[in-house]
């Protein structure tokens, strides 16, 4: 099991920051610019890790614990998500519930840390993040339920078998679409949130982490990269069936699929403006409705 576990988790831990570089490079190509170096996210993380952290006198231990708990929870969730039909996950019944709630724990830690600063501005961001993720969570669960109903599996490994694009069950094609909307919402990407904005009225995720500095900020940014990898892996797992029959070739194809997801995020960010804040819940409700229709039709079949 370890032989299968290690490459999957090592690929995630090492390559995750590269996803941000891919997104930025795609956006740069669309804008006709050269873009940052692909190693820039790694350099940023190293720079932050070398710095010292500054703590406000208002904050307590919750503020310091936030980034650590968040990163640990996301890494634990990542260990549960399969990639490339390689196996090697813990694989127990209902592990997707644990994975989703580990992500919720990570978010709760960052939200509490933001509230701990005593800044009303960060409280506003925390409130928005909590509200939007509460709407994204049912969509994610519904997607897992659809896949579970169609594959009759109850573990992430059994459910993420690349069955979503099968021509015999066309309703399953709604699952990758919903998962992609959830990916954009959970990872604070356009059209839900703009990771590059510093316009205070529209910030969501970035406003929560404004007070973090140095290694704490590095933890949060690395955690965000791992979370993006996790969602891309779920999307790839749902949509990409085993192509070659050889586990290592399939694994390589899945890693390529993860980067393709990141490139798609870059394309979406290049061609779309972000939605007005009141429209975001509608987008997430639409995602839920799509997943609900997929579930109804799957159960009907």
């Amino acid at each position, binding site marked *: 099991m370890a032989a299968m576990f290690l490459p999957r988790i090592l690929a995630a831990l090492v390559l995750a920051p590269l996803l941000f570089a891919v997104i930025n490079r795609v956006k740069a190509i669309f804008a006709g610019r050269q873009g940052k170096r692909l190693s820039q996210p790694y350099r940023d993380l190293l720079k932050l890790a070398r710095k010292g952290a500054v703590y406000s006198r208002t904050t307590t231990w919750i503020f310091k614990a936030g980034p650590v708990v968040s990163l640990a929870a996301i890494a634990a969730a990542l260990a549960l998500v399969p990639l490339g039909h390689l196996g090697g996950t813990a694989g127990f019944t209902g592990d997707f519930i644990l994975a989703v709630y580990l992500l919720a724990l990570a978010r709760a830690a960052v939200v509490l840390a933001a509230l701990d600063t005593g800044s009303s501005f960060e409280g506003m961001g925390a409130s928005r993040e909590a509200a939007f993720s509460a709407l994204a969570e049912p969509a994610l669960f519904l997607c897992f339920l659809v896949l579970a109903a169609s594959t009759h599996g109850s573990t992430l490994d059994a459910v993420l078998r690349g069955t979503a694009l099968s*021509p*015999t069950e*066309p*309703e399953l*094609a*709604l699952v990758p679409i919903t998962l992609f909307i959830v990916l954009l919402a959970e990872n604070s990407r356009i059209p839900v949130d703009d990771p590059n904005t510093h316009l205070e009225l529209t910030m969501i995720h970035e406003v929560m982490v404004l007070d973090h500095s140095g290694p704490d900020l590095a933890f949060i940014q690395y955690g965000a990269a791992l979370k993006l990898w996790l969602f891309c892996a779920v999307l790839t797992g749902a949509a990409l069936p085993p192509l070659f029959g050889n586990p290592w070739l399939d694994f390589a194809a899945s890693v390529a699929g993860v980067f393709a997801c990141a490139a798609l995020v870059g394309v979406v960010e290049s061609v779309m403006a972000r939605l007005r804040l009141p429209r975001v819940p*509608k987008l997430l*409700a*639409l995602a839920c*409705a*799509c997943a*609900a*229709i997929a579930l*109804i*039709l799957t159960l*009907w079949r």
Partner: protein
Amino acid sequence: MTVAALFEPLMIALILTNLALLVTSRTGVLIRLMALQGAILAFAPLFPPAGVPTHLALLCLAVFAIKAVAFPRLLSRTLRRIDADSRIEPYLGEGLSAAAGIGGLLFSLWLEGRLPVPPGLFAPLLFPAALTTIFTGLILVVTRKNALTQVIGYLAAENGIFLFGAPLSRQGSAWLELSILLDVFVGVFVMGIAIHHINKTFESIDVGRFCTLRD
């Protein structure tokens, strides 16, 4: 993948356009969705694809020309002419409408199992897709205040009824369908004129303002 296997994706696309009709508030987008729904419907009588008679091909062409081209152009023209206020709030919000639409889909699937339909008459998913389209039309007519949206609701309901008739069109009901199509065309034409008059009298196409009418 055979051509016949395309029928189910077509029906799922139809169900999705219904959902989109229910969650969209902008009239221009609604008209485009209506055109898409018309285009999907034009292909429905062609299944199964073996041995399509000429009158059926004619029906499909007429459906495409009227539902996917003529109606959208007519409605867009009306929309442009009346310079409509796009902020007419519906009686029921988009979220609840979508929930009602999903409820309609559930009910259709339940009803399909209960009705004594001759086996093999309806292709898989045709019955629930048609009934959901009718429900969508009804929800749009009942819960929206915008007169143009109500016309689109009426068209959606008619689309659902047309889809019910699609499996029978090989047995010669195509001529009946064509005459209904003509009626609907005239209906939409008259509704366009009526909307002009509503807009002129009430300075809006909000049907909620009808309540202000006095003797």
